[in-house]
C-alpha cells in the first residue's frame, strides 16, 4: 500500500492506468486474500462453489456472496471517491435508511414506484449535497461533518416511517432488491453497472486525476486552477446517491423499510472495503474495482462464518483476525520483508 502521489509536472508520468499483465493483477494482495477466503470457505463447506439454475436465476453460495456484498460494494464505490479526496463519509448507512424509508412510505401512500425510486435517489443526493456543503463551504472536517448526518439521519428515517417497519408489496421495489437479470441477482447487476460506469468515467476522462489532485493537496489543486470545492461537493453527492441505491436494495430485499437497522454500521464496512482495496485514507491514488473486491472479500468472510457452523460468539473474532492478516499482507513493510527474505535465499543459493 505505498502511497503514490499524483505528479502534476508536465513531463511526469500520466496516472492513466496502463494495461497490466494478468499475472501482475493476480498477484495483488487483494486477489490472493479473496482466493484464500474462498478456499477456506470451500474447505468448510465442499458445496460452496456449486451453482445451480433455479426459478430463472443462478443459485448458490457464491451468488449469495455477490448478492449480499452488493450493497456494501455500491457504498464502497461512492466511498472510494470520497476517501480519494482525503475525506470520509460516515453518513452512508443512515442515508440508506432514509432512502428506503422514503421509497417505502411513498409506495405505501399510493405513489407510483418510479416516482418513489426517484424521490429516494433525490433524498440521497440531497443528503450528499448537505455533507458536501458542510465540508467545503463551512470547512468542517469530513469525519465530523458526516457524523452529523450519521446520527441525525437515522432519526430522520424513523420520523419518515414513524418508528415502524413500513412493509410494501410493490413489484418494482421488490425487483430492485430480489429480482434477477440474465440469471444474476439485481443487486449484483446494479453494482456491476455502477462499478464499470464509475471506473470508465474517472479513468477515461481526467476526472480521476483531478479527484486525486484534490485529495493529495487541495490548496495546490486550487492554485493549479481546479475548482476544488465543486469537486468535493460532487463527490459527496455521488456517495449520497450510491447510498440511496444501496438503501433501495436492502429495503426491496426484505420488502420493508426498517429505519432502525437498515444500513446500520455499513459505513464502517464500506470504509474497510475501500482500505482493503488499497486506497489510502490520506487521499490520492484510488481504485474503484479494488474497493468492490474489498467488499466481496468482507462478504465472502461473512458468508463463510455463516456456513462454517462456528458459534456466533466467534464471528467478530474471526473477522478481525482475517482483516488484520489482509492488512498485514498489504503493508509496505511486509512487502519489504518478503523481498529481503527472497534476497537472502538467492544470496544463500549462490
Amino acid at each position, binding site marked *: 500500500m505505498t502511497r503514490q502521489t499524483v505528479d502534476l509536472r508536465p513531463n511526469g508520468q500520466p496516472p492513466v492506468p496502463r494495461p497490466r499483465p494478468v499475472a501482475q493483477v493476480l498477484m495483488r494482495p487483494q486477489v490472493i486474500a479473496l482466493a484464500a477466503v474462498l478456499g477456506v470457505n470451500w474447505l468448510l*463447506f465442499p*458445496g460452496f462453489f456449486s451453482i445451480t439454475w*433455479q*426459478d430463472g436465476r443462478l*443459485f*448458490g*453460495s457464491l451468488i*449469495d456472496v455477490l448478492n*449480499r456484498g452488493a450493497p456494501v460494494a455500491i457504498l464502497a464505490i461512492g466511498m472510494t471517491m470520497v476517501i480519494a479526496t482525503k475525506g470520509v463519509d460516515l453518513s452512508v448507512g443512515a442515508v440508506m435508511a432514509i432512502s428506503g424509508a422514503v421509497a417505502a412510505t411513498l409506495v405505501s401512500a399510493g405513489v407510483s414506484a418510479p416516482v418513489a425510486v426517484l424521490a429516494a435517489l433525490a433524498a440521497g443526493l440531497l443528503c450528499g449535497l448537505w455533507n458536501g456543503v458542510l465540508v467545503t463551504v463551512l470547512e468542517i472536517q469530513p469525519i465530523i461533518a458526516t457524523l452529523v448526518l450519521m446520527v441525525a439521519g437515522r432519526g430522520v428515517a424513523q420520523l419518515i416511517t414513524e*418508528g*415502524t*417497519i413500513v*412493509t410494501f408489496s410493490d413489484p418494482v421495489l421488490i425487483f430492485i432488491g*430480489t429480482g434477477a437479470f440474465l440469471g444474476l441477482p439485481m443487486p449484483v447487476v446494479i453494482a456491476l453497472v455502477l462499478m464499470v460506469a464509475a471506473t470508465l468515467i474517472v479513468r477515461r476522462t481526467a476526472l480521476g486525476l483531478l479527484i486525486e489532485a484534490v485529495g493529495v493537496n487541495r490548496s495546490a489543486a486550487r492554485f493549479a486552477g481546479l475548482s476544488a470545492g465543486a469537486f468535493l461537493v460532487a463527490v459527496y453527492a455521488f456517495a449520497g446517491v450510491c447510498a440511496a441505491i444501496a438503501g433501495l436494495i*436492502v429495503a426491496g*430485499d*426484505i*420488502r*420493508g423499510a*426498517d429505519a*432502525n*437497522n*437498515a444500513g*446500520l454500521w455499513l459505513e464502517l464496512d464500506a470504509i474497510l472495503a475501500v482500505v482493503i482495496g488499497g486506497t489510502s485514507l490520506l487521499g490520492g491514488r484510488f481504485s474503484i474495482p479494488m474497493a468492490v473486491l474489498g467488499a466481496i472479500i468482507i462478504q465472502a468472510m*461473512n*458468508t463463510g462464518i*455463516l*456456513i462454517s*457452523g462456528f*458459534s*456466533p*460468539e466467534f*464471528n467478530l473474532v474471526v473477522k478481525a483476525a482475517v482483516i488484520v492478516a489482509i492488512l498485514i499482507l498489504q503493508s509496505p513493510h511486509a512487502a519489504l520483508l518478503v523481498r529481503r527474505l527472497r534476497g537472502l535465499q538467492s544470496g544463500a543459493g549462490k
Partner: protein
Amino acid sequence: MTLFRTLALGAGMVGLLLSTAHAEGLQGKIIGFSQIGSESGWRAAETSVTKAEAEARGIDLKFADAQQKQENQIKAIRGFIAQGVDAILVAPVVATGWEEVLTEAKEAEIPVVLLDRGIEGPEDLYLTSVASDQVKEGRVAGEWLAGTVGEAQCNIVELQGTVGSSPAINRKQGFEEAIAGKANLAIIRSQTGDFTRSKGKEVMEGFLKAEDGGKNICAVYAHNDDMAVGAIQAIKDAGLKPGSDILVVSIDAVPDIFAAMVAGEANATVELTPNMAGPAFDALQAYWDAGTEPAKFIITESKLYTPADDPQGEYERRKDLGY
C-alpha cells in the same frame, strides 16, 4: 435540595389525601409513566397499550418519554413526585442508579411499579415489577415444536438474537430446556441474526445452502418474529414452502408474523405482551382497595399463538398499536 424534598413530600401528601378522597377503583387516579423511548416497534406498542389501559380504567396518565436516557427518567420521576401523582410506572432504561430517586418516591409515599425490566437495588424501593419470563418464552416455543413433530426426526436451525443480549441468552436457554432429552430433536445450526429481518434472511440463506438446499432442515426457531419474517423470504427464494416444508416458530407476536400465518407461512409465535401496564394497574388497585401487598415479581403470560388462533383477527387488533 432539602427545600425540594420538603416540597416534594408536601406534594406527595396532597396526592395521598386526594387519593383517599376517591372512591374504589382507579377512576380519577393520576399515574405517571416514565417510558424508555420508542427504540423498537414493541416499545411503541407498549406505550400505546399502556395509554389505552389507563383510559379504559379512567386513569389520568402522565406520560414522559426519556429518549433512552436515564437522566431524563430521573427528571421525569422527580417531576411526578412534585406533581403528587398517585403512583409511578417506570420502564428502567438501565438496571443501576435508581436508589436515590426511588427513595425520594418512597419518602413521598408514592408506590412505584417497574415495567418490563428490573433494577439492581433494595426490593423495598418499589411495590412490584411486571415483566415477561424470557426463558419461559423459549420453553413455550420449544414445547410447541416438540409437541408438533412428535416422534419424527427433526433438524432445527436457530436464528439467535444479538450475541450477548439477555433475550438471546434466555430464549436460547428456554428452547434448549424444552427439547432436552428428545433424541429426535436437534439444533444443527445456530447463528445470530441480530434481531433484524435482513440479517435473519441472510443467515437463513446460508443455512439453506449448507444443509442440502434446505432438505435437511425441518424447522427454524427464531428469537424474534422479525428474523422469522426474513427467514420465510429466504425459504421461499430457495424454492421451499415455509410453514410446511420448513416449520417456522418464533417469539414476540408482532402483526407481520400473523400476516405470515394467514398466508400459511408461519406456524407459531409466543407472545411478548406489550400489556405490562394492565397487570400493574390491577396490582395497584388491589393494593389501594384491599391493602394487598402484590408479589414482588409479576410474570406476564407467554401465550402461544398458532394459525388456529384467528391470525387475521390478531393482525387487525395489533396493526395500529405502533409495532
